[in-house]
C-alpha cells in the first residue's frame, strides 16, 4: 500500500492517511449508490412478487443473447480497468492509457447494444405510456416491468456515460504522462467506480433478462 501516494497535502497527517481518505471517500459514495439503486431493487422485488406472471411474460420480450453478450462485454471492461489500475501502480502511463482506451471502447459497445435494444422495444411498442401494447396479458403488470426495465437500465447507462467522460479525462492525462509509481490514486478511484457499475449490471441482468425462461 506504500507505492501509491501523491505529494502530501497539508490537511493530511501522512501519505498513508491521504491515500486511505481517497479510497474511503469513493467507498462512501458507492455506499450511497448501493442505496440509490437499492430503492429501485426493492420496488422491483415488490412488484415482481405482486405481478409475477406478468413479469415472466414481459421478460421474455428481452433478447437473452444481447443481455448475455453485454454482460460479457462489461466484465471484459472491468478486466481492462483492473489492468489499467495495475499499470498505474507500475507508473506505466502508456499502458494506463491503452487499457483505459480498451475500457472506453468496451463501455461504448455496451451502450451501443443498449441503444439497439431500446430501439427494438420502441418498434415493438413496449415503451410504457400511451402506445404501450402487450396483447398476451391484461392488466398493468407488463407495463410495470418495462417501467422498471427502462428506469434501471437507463440509470445504469447514465452511470456508464458519466464513467466514460471520466475515462476520457484520465486517458488524456495518462497520455500526457501525469502518473507515476508514486502517484496513480485517481486511476484506482476511477477503477472503483467502474467496477461498481459492473456490479450493478451483474444484478440487473438476472433481474430483467432471467426472470423465468424454461417454457
Amino acid at each position, binding site marked *: 500500500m506504500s507505492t501509491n501516494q501523491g505529494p502530501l497535502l497539508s490537511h493530511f497527517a501522512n501519505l498513508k492517511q491521504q491515500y486511505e481518505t481517497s*479510497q474511503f471517500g469513493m*467507498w462512501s459514495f458507492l455506499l450511497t449508490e448501493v442505496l440509490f439503486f437499492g430503492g429501485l431493487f426493492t420496488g422491483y*422485488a415488490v412488484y415482481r*412478487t405482486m405481478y409475477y406472471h*406478468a413479469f415472466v411474460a414481459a421478460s421474455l420480450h428481452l433478447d437473452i443473447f444481447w443481455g448475455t453478450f453485454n454482460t460479457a462485454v462489461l466484465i*471484459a471492461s*472491468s478486466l481492462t480497468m483492473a489492468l489499467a489500475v495495475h499499470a498505474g501502480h507500475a507508473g506505466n502511463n502508456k499502458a494506463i492509457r491503452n487499457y483505459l482506451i480498451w475500457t472506453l471502447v468496451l463501455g461504448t459497445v455496451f451502450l451501443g447494444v443498449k441503444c439497439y435494444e431500446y430501439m427494438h422495444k420502441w418498434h415493438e411498442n413496449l415503451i410504457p405510456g400511451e402506445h404501450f401494447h402487450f396483447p398476451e396479458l391484461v392488466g398493468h403488470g407488463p407495463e410495470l416491468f418495462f417501467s422498471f426495465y427502462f428506469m434501471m437500465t437507463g440509470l445504469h447507462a447514465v452511470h456508464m456515460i458519466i464513467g466514460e467522460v471520466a475515462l476520457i479525462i484520465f486517458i488524456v492525462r495518462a497520455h500526457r504522462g501525469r502518473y507515476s509509481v508514486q502517484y496513480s490514486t485517481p486511476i484506482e478511484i476511477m477503477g472503483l467506480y467502474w467496477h461498481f457499475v459492473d456490479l450493478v449490471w451483474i444484478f440487473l441482468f*438476472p433481474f430483467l433478462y432471467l426472470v423465468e425462461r*424454461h417454457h
Partner: protein
Amino acid sequence: MSKDTPKDYYVIFAALLILTGITTGAAFMDFGYFNFPIAMIIATIKAVLVVWFFMHLRHMSKLSRIFAAGGVFWLAIMLAFTFADYLTRETLIPPKPVTWIDQSAVRQAYRESPRFEHHTSEAAPAEHH
C-alpha cells in the same frame, strides 16, 4: 496492491464469464422455487469476486471493509422491512393469486369513478351522443 499480478485478474475474468454462462443456462432449466435463489446466489458470487479482487477490498483497511459491508447491511434492512410489510398484508393476497391485486376489480372501480367519466367525455365526446 503490488501483490496482485495480471494473471490474477485474468483468472477472475474467466471465473466471471463462466458464472455468467452458468446463470444464463440455469434460467432455461426448471428448478421450481429455486430458480430465483440460484440466480441470486450466482450474482452474489460474481459481486463478491468483483469487490474482493477487482476493487481490491482484500487489500483495504478494516474501516473500508466495514463500510462496504455497511452497504449490504442497509440494503438488507430496506428489503427486510419492506417485505415484512408487503408479505403480511393478507388483504392483498387472494388464495390462488395470478396477481395480488384483482385487476378487473380495480379497473371496474376506476371506470365507475366520476373522474374517469369526466376524462372520457373530454377525450371522446362523440361516443356519448
